[in-house]
């Protein structure tokens, strides 16, 4: 009984963790490649969910096509943001670029609200409400799909960044863009690629999040949690972002399960769920300021 409860908690933690991991992955990728801390990462996630909702629920387009449209348009939005805004800001002070991403985040929320409204909607997904029963355990199909697709995506990313010329070139640009240019890499194109991939994974995460809950402009808050996941993971490697995301998701799930409904003298301990991610981030950073997997720099001889 207790075992099953724990499996259930871990399962739902993993399905949320996968979402944080995807968003965090884009966050780290954009930061490592272009030096910009994108505070609008959660908003890109929200836009992806709204586009999917628009096609699937409002236009009644088949679900798979809606998902593909949302991912493609989300990725294009990322590329567009780079070309219109951040291409000109590479190398500018970080406080300036951070403010621009915060401004962009507000604009994206406002525009989304303008087009689709600020209410709460649900996506017309074939997974919603469906479950898979395994023995005494019941798993939501939407959560299962999130976990499986995320694992596939993570593997694809690892292969892309370690095997493909484009992926390795992107890593090289992230480490030293001047030298990458000297090797014939078009650095601007690489920055655009980083934004495209970063927005793409955020869009995927947004769709998963919509499947597990609802579509509304407030869902962009996921971005802040994903950011703490990325920082927890060290802001260095994509692996760190993934593990950071999973840690945040699972901790949150345990906090939600064991603390919800717990009330003591007017304190609602269930509320801790929403700050659990930040609590562990603060704790970890106090002990390891560079995150769990972060390092100052590769030792040079």
């Amino acid at each position, binding site marked *: 009984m207790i075992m099953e409860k724990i499996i259930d908690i871990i399962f739902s933690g993993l399905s949320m963790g996968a979402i944080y991991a995807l968003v965090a992955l884009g966050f780290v990728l954009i930061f490592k490649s272009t030096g910009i801390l994108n505070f609008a990462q959660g908003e890109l996630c929200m836009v992806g969910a709204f586009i999917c909702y628009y096609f699937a629920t409002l236009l009644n387009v088949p679900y798979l096509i809606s998902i593909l449209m949302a991912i493609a348009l989300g990725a294009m939005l990322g590329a567009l943001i780079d070309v219109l805004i951040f291409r000109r800001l590479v190398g500018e002070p970080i406080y300036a670029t951070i403010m621009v991403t915060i401004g962009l985040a507000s604009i994206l929320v406002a525009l989304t609200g303008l087009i689709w409204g600020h209410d709460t909607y649900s996506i017309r997904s074939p997974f919603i409400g469906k479950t898979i029963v395994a023995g005494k355990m019941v798993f939501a199909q939407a959560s299962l799909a999130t976990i499986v697709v995320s694992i596939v995506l993570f593997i694809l990313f690892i292969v892309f960044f370690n095997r493909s*010329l484009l992926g390795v070139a992107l890593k090289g640009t992230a480490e030293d863009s001047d030298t990458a240019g000297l090797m014939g890499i078009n650095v601007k194109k690489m920055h655009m690629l980083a934004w495209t991939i970063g927005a793409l994974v955020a869009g995927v995460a947004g769709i998963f999040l919509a499947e597990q809950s609802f579509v509304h402009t407030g869902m962009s808050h996921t971005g802040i949690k994903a950011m703490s996941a990325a920082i927890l993971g060290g802001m260095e490697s994509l692996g760190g972002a993934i593990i950071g995301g999973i840690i945040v998701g699972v901790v949150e799930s345990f906090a939600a399960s064991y603390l919800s409904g717990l009330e003591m003298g007017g304190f609602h301990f269930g509320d801790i769920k929403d700050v659990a991610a930040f609590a562990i981030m603060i704790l970890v950073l106090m002990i390891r300021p560079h995150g769990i997997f972060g390092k100052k720099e590769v030792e040079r001889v």
Partner: protein
Amino acid sequence: MLKVTNLETTYNDIILALKGISIEVSPEKIVAILGANGAGKTTTINAISGIRKTINLEVEDGTIEFDGEILNDKEPYEIVTRGILQVPEGRRIFAELTIAENLMIGAYSLQNRGHFQTNKEMVFNYFPILSERTRQLAGYLSGGEQQMLAIARALVANPKLIMMDEPSLGLAPMIVQEIFEIIRRINHERDMTILLVEQNAHMALAIAHYGYILENGRVVMEGSSKKLRQDKDIREFYLGLSESGGRKSFREVKHYKRRKRWLS
């Protein structure tokens, strides 16, 4: 092949780093640019490579011409597609990537990916030590090995012209000997055209065909290596040799440095 004419550049719109220099590199030759720290050597090859925006460098006057095409306004990656690769000062290998990945990026500009494997084998032939450690992070290589990787990374693209910025920098004399011998072999065996920037005039003139002496952003002397090696001033100022052929004492060198400033 490469023809730089009256090149004048500024940093941040004010500091005049090159005051109208002219340099020519003929095919299949090693041409050396020699000069003390701050003479403008790195500025010269960065201008050729198109590295401008990120270091606030601007070409004010003159032309950079390669195979008949003016390259003044090209981006770094466009310069590379023309066949000019740089081995930057301080090596600048990708420390967080493996040796294999460094070479992969070096060959980024290859039009025909099918040539990557053969080029890699050719490079490993010059630097066998790299072939044994392809999966290691480049950051863990020793200084000399990093310099070898930096040269290999340019060579693997099979360029028309390689520009090397102080390959001897910070390396022990034995390693410098070894690396310069490889540079000489690359030129000799592969007819590779090389523009070699050096403070170490002694080593550079031993393998170069032709040389330029740069001082304060100006070419103050040029000629065949043989001629430069025999020039009295160069023997004194850059090779540290006195009339009698022996090494000059530190005090005498200092004395000549004072005179050099007056000369320029």
